[in-house]
């Protein structure tokens, strides 16, 4: 029932992002409410010229309790993603990284070629890579084969909340995989997360669906149960779909 990433066991199959919350307390409370044990952060420039006592996101996440996963958000080339990965490793002291190399600012879709180049180089540098990618079935397999520890195809573009627009491709990626497949991006509400898990995904990574809801703490809890429900349904194996109606009660002993 658990998810293993980089030789560590996670009881929750939900990973949440830390972006777009109203404040760091809300991030902290949503994380708690979601039951997630891993949270992504972006590696960016600090704001200079401000109060030295200004709060930092890392002060709100207990690194003993939660795995902090640095991402390479905002990178459009392999070189930049490698550079940010090295900075993340220095900051957080771990070789685990979420590799994300984007094609352009409008679609925020993954740049497949640069993602592959960066992944190969980061494997050589000893990183454990959870890689954000398209739903390209062949590419997902290639990323696994070069040594990524988890492959994370999108459900729909980042921040759109459109849900799963590619279930056939996701199913094929899952069928082919020997590493965890985690849907990353596009989840809009709880049922989307459940569907991802029912398809057989090993986990779900989401951010906006919680942070941009009216009540992030409540939505975080909804996502917790959505992922658990979807996984249980997947493991229970759903009933066959029938074109013909079949009564639930026995036909025998009917009064008419």
């Amino acid at each position, binding site marked *: 029932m658990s998810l293993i990433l980089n030789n560590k066991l996670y009881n929750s199959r939900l990973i949440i*992002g*830390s*972006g*777009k*919350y109203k404040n760091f307390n809300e*991030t902290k409370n949503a994380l708690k409410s979601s039951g997630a044990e891993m949270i*992504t*952060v*972006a*590696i*960016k*420039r*600090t704001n*200079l*010229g*401000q*109060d*030295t*006592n*200004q709060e*930092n*996101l*890392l*002060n709100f996440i207990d690194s003993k309790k939660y795995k*902090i996963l*640095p*991402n390479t*958000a905002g990178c459009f080339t392999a070189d930049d993603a490698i*550079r940010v990965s*090295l*900075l*993340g490793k*220095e*900051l*957080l002291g771990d070789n685990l990284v979420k590799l994300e190399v984007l094609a352009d600012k409008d679609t925020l879709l993954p740049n497949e070629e640069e993602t592959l180049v960066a992944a190969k180089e980061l494997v050589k540098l000893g990183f454990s890579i959870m890689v954000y990618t398209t739903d390209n079935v062949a590419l997902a397999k290639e990323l696994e084969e070069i040594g990524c520890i988890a492959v994370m195809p999108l459900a729909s573009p*980042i921040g759109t909340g459109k849900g799963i627009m590619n279930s056939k491709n996701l199913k094929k990626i899952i069928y082919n995989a020997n590493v965890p497949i985690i849907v990353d*991006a596009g989840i809009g509400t709880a049922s989307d997360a459940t569907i991802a898990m029912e398809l057989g995904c090993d986990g779900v*990574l*989401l*951010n*906006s669906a919680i942070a941009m809801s009216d009540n992030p703490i409540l939505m975080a809890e909804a996502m917790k149960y959505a992922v658990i429900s979807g996984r249980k349904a997947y493991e229970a194996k759903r009933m066959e779909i029938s074109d013909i109606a079949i009564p639930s009660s026995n036909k025998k002993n009917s009064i008419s």
Partner: protein
Amino acid sequence: MNIIVNGDKISIEKNINLENFLKLNNINNKNIVIEVNKIIITKSMWKEKKIKEGDVIEIITAVGGG
């Protein structure tokens, strides 16, 4: 002398090391990583690392992201 910090051109005095630069500019030294000319300078080296004319410095931390 002039240097670039997080993309902005600034003027500083000569012979300043990284540690003093942070203090003089009220930059909290916790939860940050520093890169000088694209090379990461680990915290234990901040005292030794003198800043030179034209250096490009990046001061990096973790922020919200998905």
